[in-house]
């Protein structure tokens, strides 16, 4: 295809991606280097027969002028990255010096928002992903063994948790585990403890969010594995059976190697999707015990009347950096494949 025709065909698509994905990433970076102007404050003294009073007021005119002159705010360099909302370098140094054990140190670090969010996001990603892979594979094997008549309805029912809006899906579960909801109330009865609440305990909140994550994404790995199972070569299975392989051995040595490329694909998608976990935290109102990086950015942007663009920008840049690290192995692999293909 000629370069000019190619450009004409791809222009609309490339320009929206450039304008609304590439440029915002740059603009987020610039945002993160600046800090909001301080309001210009006028101190005035009012005297009346009863004495003098100083009042402070915001000089709106001067503030607006300042804003017009430099709409991005004051240049702040990388200070936003190192402040206590983000890497908190000073505070960590202090915590290191003042804590007597490593656990105490870790506990202190956990109080800073970025580390809190990172620890939940990473735990969530690396717990949910393997569970989804493993359970999805089991269900796929199970459905493959079902009579044909039942397969269609089973796939239909399985798709629902994934298709439903994350915010809505997690709300549905939230209402059920509520102290008065069907699961919550039943658990209280089983343990005979009326104050038992899944929402009040940090550990249970984390577990609940991860159970939701597994419930929500398992259909995806199930469907992909199920489709993969249909393509397992019949001859190889038969050959293995003739050689005396048991069902387990056949699965272990024929089916699983055949599905490996699929597993890598699913892992990649799951890592990307789990890393941006956000909606369930809103639905479960879990922010007291569990925050994710996306939630942190959202919170910076929602901060009272003045969105903290610099803080949101810095957190976003850190997120993008983490995503880059997650993707690196895949990118290197694709690059190598591509080069080999071109050589050959």
């Amino acid at each position, binding site marked *: *295809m000629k*370069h000019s*025709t*190619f450009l004409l*065909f*791809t222009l*609309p*698509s490339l320009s*929206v*991606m450039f*304008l*609304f*994905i*590439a440029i915002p*990433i740059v603009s987020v970076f610039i945002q993160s280097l600046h800090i909001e102007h301080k309001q210009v404050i006028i101190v005035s003294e009012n005297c009346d027969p009863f004495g003098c009073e100083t009042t402070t007021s915001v000089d709106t005119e001067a503030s607006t002028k300042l804003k017009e002159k430099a709409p991005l705010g004051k240049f702040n360099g990388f200070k936003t990255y190192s402040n206590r909302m983000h890497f908190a370098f000073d505070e960590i140094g202090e915590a290191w010096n003042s804590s007597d054990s490593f656990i105490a140190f870790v506990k202190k670090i956990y109080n800073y928002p970025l580390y809190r969010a990172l620890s939940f996001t990473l735990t969530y990603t690396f717990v949910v992903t393997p569970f989804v892979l493993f359970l999805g594979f089991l269900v796929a*094997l199970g459905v493959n*063994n079902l*009579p044909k008549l039942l397969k*269609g309805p089973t796939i*239909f029912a*399985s*798709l629902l*948790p994934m*298709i*439903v*809006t994350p915010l*809505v899906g997690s*709300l549905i579960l939230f209402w*059920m585990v509520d*102290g008065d*909801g069907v699961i919550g109330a039943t658990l209280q009865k089983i343990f005979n403890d009326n104050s038992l609440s899944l929402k009040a305990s940090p550990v249970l909140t984390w577990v609940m969010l991860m159970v939701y994550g597994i419930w929500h994404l398992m*259909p*995806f790995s199930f*469907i*992909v594995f199920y489709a*993969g199972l249909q393509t397992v070569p019949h001859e190889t299975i038969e050959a293995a059976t003739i050689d005396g392989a048991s*069902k387990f051995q056949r699965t272990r040595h024929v089916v699983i190697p055949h599905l490996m*490329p*699929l597993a890598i*694909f699913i892992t990649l998608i799951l890592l990307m999707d789990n*890393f*941006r976990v*956000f*909606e369930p935290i*809103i639905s479960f109102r879990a922010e007291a015990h569990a925050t994710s*990086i*996306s939630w942190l*950015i*959202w919170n910076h*942007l929602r901060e009272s009347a003045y*969105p903290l663009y610099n803080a949101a920008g810095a*957190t*976003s840049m850190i997120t*993008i950096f983490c*995503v*880059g690290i*997650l*993707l690196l192995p*895949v*990118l290197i692999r694709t690059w190598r494949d591509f080069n080999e293909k071109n050589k050959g």
Partner: protein
Amino acid sequence: MNTKIENKLTPVRIIAFVFVALWLIVAMFPFIWTLWGSFKVQADFFSKADWANAIFGFHTEKQTGNFFTIDGYYGSWIEEEFWRAVINTSIVVFFTVLISLTFGTLGGYALARSTYRYAFWILMAGLIFRAMPHMTLVSGYLQPFFAWNVWGILPTTIIVLVAINQPFTLWMLHSFFLNIPKDLDESAMCDGCNRFQAFRYVIIPIMWPGVITTGLFSFLLAYNDFTVTSMLLSDENETMIPAIASFLGTVQEEGKVMYAVAAVVSATAPLFFLVMFFQRQIVSGLTAGAVKG
């Protein structure tokens, strides 16, 4: 082939059967429970004393005279004006899908037919863009959108959703067009068509299965989005999902949780029918990138 063996009940089969049955209960029960409960009053749906109340509607019968009530739906759709959000969602979803598919088919086709190295780089860039958490992008939009005075309106949200959707659409349609033999449009070009005519008269008539599948996923992305719509739309332009989220705070205080339950069921119902009618396309779309990859 060997039907006798396939129908025999072995222990492995029974375990598989039980396991799948368990998964089905886990997958379906929350939906059935919430759908049934949305026609009850709060005292039944959130019944601490006895969960059976939610099934038989003990309090619902006492309060409304019938064990079945649509108060929740009336409250959310009419009193809280949920219908506005439904209209906004329809507009956003319709245009997002339309524009995404137009841009995506053109781009995906060109990427599939180009033999140059840059096509590969564009796809790689797409993969990286696909991995960007949407929240990081949204934090970059707010300041310029406020400055240009385009924040809060539907067109802005639509174009942003199109952009966020584009990497995925490109990938999917690219792999779909790779499956259409090159010879088809090349022979048309031998007969004197230029590239656009070949695309118009040869490719467009046969591309609909792939476009429909991709369209379903664009639909889901636009319909399910919370991050973008909650940050970029003003209150009067709110779509369904952020409306449900903001509703939660207000109705919870007034003890009208059932309004939110009804709204949640209303938002899920279209998806339910979507899966019912397009199950095959969704499954093939999910596996399209994977089985080949």
